[in-house]
């Protein structure tokens, strides 16, 4: 394989065209892109047909009509036939005089923020322990950590509802400690937040574990050798190294949490604790408001795009730094 070493070209003349890659041979300098494109093709086609197209359909529903006989929304595919009735209704619901969605948005932000911070505070120490100190029992801990994935989320929630009844076992323990008998299922924000944490924390723990496990222990030893205390080692070595896992973990917990509706439905049932997911679900299952539900969900999606871009950019930066 010969490579041309072009003489120093003057700034104005174009660079000589690169030698075409020999077919079937990986040259290292210019990979044959076609192969990779073909590899990614099935996924891309799938995405376009079964993800992009449905999204256009959501938009068409949002800008469409309602058939009063079949109680079903009618999609209007031609952009020129779109009516903005639903959009103005939704904006009115969020910002207008009788806004009822506005408070729900605030509730959602507060619940998700509290739930994510709490999840991180619980998941990180547990993941750290299993990654660094579990020793021979690592297998056992891993199996136990993964177990929640194997049983239906519904059943775990049902079991919780059962345990949280006013005369259930949780209150039996709680009053034994002397903390009284709170009405857990009486429509309270703390129950919903705890429910959110419970539902999403297994994913966070696994991601954190995978990331923390990869941290080279010799780096920590080096920190100690240089005279850092335990706390400083953690702060200056471990935490920065776990930045990427934390970021990924937050992505897969916070963003889905914003669309969650069943946690509130199961554990509270009170309109005072409704999240934006509940509003969307209520609208989508009410024929008259299905168009508004479509628009609201597109707005939520737009809001989610911001953090996502941040994640992608941050990840790219990390991968560039690593390679």
């Amino acid at each position, binding site marked *: 394989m010969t490579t041309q070493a072009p003489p120093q070209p003057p700034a104005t003349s174009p660079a000589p065209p690169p030698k075409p890659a020999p077919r079937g041979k990986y040259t290292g300098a210019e990979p044959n892109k076609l192969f990779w494109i073909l590899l990614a093709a099935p996924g891309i086609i799938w995405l376009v047909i079964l993800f992009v197209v449905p999204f256009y359909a959501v938009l068409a529903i949002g800008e469409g*009509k309602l058939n009063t*006989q*079949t109680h079903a929304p009618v999609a209007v595919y031609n952009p020129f036939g779109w009516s903005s*009735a639903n959009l103005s209704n939704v904006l009115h619901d969020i910002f207008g005089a009788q806004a*009822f969605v506005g408070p729900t948005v605030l509730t959602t932000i507060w619940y998700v923020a509290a739930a994510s911070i709490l999840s991180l505070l619980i998941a990180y120490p547990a993941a750290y322990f299993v990654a660094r100190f579990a020793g021979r029992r690592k297998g056992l801990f891993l199996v136990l950590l993964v177990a929640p994935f194997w049983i239906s989320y519904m059943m775990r929630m049902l079991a919780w509802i059962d345990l949280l009844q006013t005369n259930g076992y949780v209150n039996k323990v709680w009053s034994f400690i002397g903390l009284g008998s709170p009405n857990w299922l009486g429509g309270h924000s703390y129950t919903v937040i705890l429910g959110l944490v419970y539902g999403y924390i297994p994913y966070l723990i696994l991601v954190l574990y995978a990331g923390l496990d990869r941290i080279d222990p010799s780096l920590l030893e080096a920190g100690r050798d240089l005279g850092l205390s335990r706390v400083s080692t953690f702060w200056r070595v471990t935490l920065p190294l776990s930045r990427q896992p934390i970021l990924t973990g937050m992505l897969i917990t916070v963003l889905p949490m914003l669309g969650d509706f069943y946690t509130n439905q199961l554990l509270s049932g009170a*309109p005072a604790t409704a999240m934006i997911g509940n509003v969307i679900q209520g*609208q989508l299952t009410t024929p008259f408001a299905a168009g508004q539900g479509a628009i609201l969900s597109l707005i939520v999606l737009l809001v989610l795009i911001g953090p996502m871009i941040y994640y992608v950019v941050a990840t790219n930066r990390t991968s560039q730094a690593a390679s």
Partner: protein
Amino acid sequence: MHPREGWQPDGTRRVPDLSRRQALKRGLAATILAGGGASLLDACAPYLVGPTNVPLPRPTNPVRWPTTDNAKIADGLQPETGATLQVYNWVAYINQAVVNSFAKKYNCKVQITTFNTMDEALSKLNSGLKFDVFMGVTVDTLGPLIASKLIQPLNHRYIPNITQAWPDFTNPFYDQGWQYTVPYTIYTTGIAWRKDLVDLNPYAMRNPWREMFFQPRYRGKIAILDDYRESPSLALMMNNIYNLNTTSRVQIDLARQTLQDLDKAVNLRIDNNDYTEVPTGQTWIHHAWSGDMAAAASYMPKGVNVDVVGYWFPTDGKGPIANDTNTVLRSASNPVLAHLFVNYLMDENVALNNISYNGYMQPITAITPEVLVKEQILPRSLTSTAVLPEDFRRGLGELQLPADADALWQQAWLVVSEGM
């Protein structure tokens, strides 16, 4: 104008639409200046599509549905052999034992598919799914079903058991001549409460609908039903309005406002789990369906007697009452078996077996409350959940609304249930 009319949650007052008489009284110019808001229909006109002249069945306006282009099956056909009867029903609304005995009797298989809401069922049927029997159809859905030609007229020859049902149902107002439906269950909507945990007596109250729910001292222990007709109707009755099919925007707004006030006062919960929550004591006062509470005995925790559960329904019968129906779908591939199935469910013994499972009464003449108590299906303390023919005739029905009024109700309920 009622003092409560027109107040908005943000404290402003919006003048509601004036009635024709009031407009004339005030003079036309004054009316225009007063700025009655544009009617919802105008705003919605480009948004709603579909037929505009849909008959709305009422007790005072009985409807005989058309059967043109919709023929019933011929007489004297044999039931299909080796078939699987496809039944489309609510969740847990029929006793599996009853289904099994039907399958054994007619030598067929039965597959039950469930739906969660009537709208979901309507949507899936319109999208082309095929079933044989469509059960638990609410009366307000019959119009759209028949207009979309989704159900077929019944051939009465296959359904002799109709004679066992209450005579009212051979010519109900919502389906004169019982062309498309047979009755399935009959139920009232009332208030369930725990007599041992709450010291209230609804029988001694002037307006129990209001006084049982507006109880701040039981904050967090009060719930209403998750239904866009039932709960706003509750709010209407709290305000002494007994037309549960009102199309008045003012009244619907009032209902919404009342429910929001209730939420602020008692941290209201909204769910349909009255049948478990009242027996276990998780909720102390629940807006409830009679059938759910009739089955309370099977959900009582150990050591707690079912006597502590009470169910109140107005003694003068002025409360919500409804009946569900069974129909045969036009897409049925086993129509004869379908007819035999709906017939089977009206047999007295089969009905008793069914009631013992889901608690909901069926309007079979031979099944009186005394019979239910004797068969130990209904505890004596809960005979208030039983429905009598007189109740059906004088009760308030939540019936089919015109499309724009329906939209108002749905919107009002959405605001209440999903946001504060």
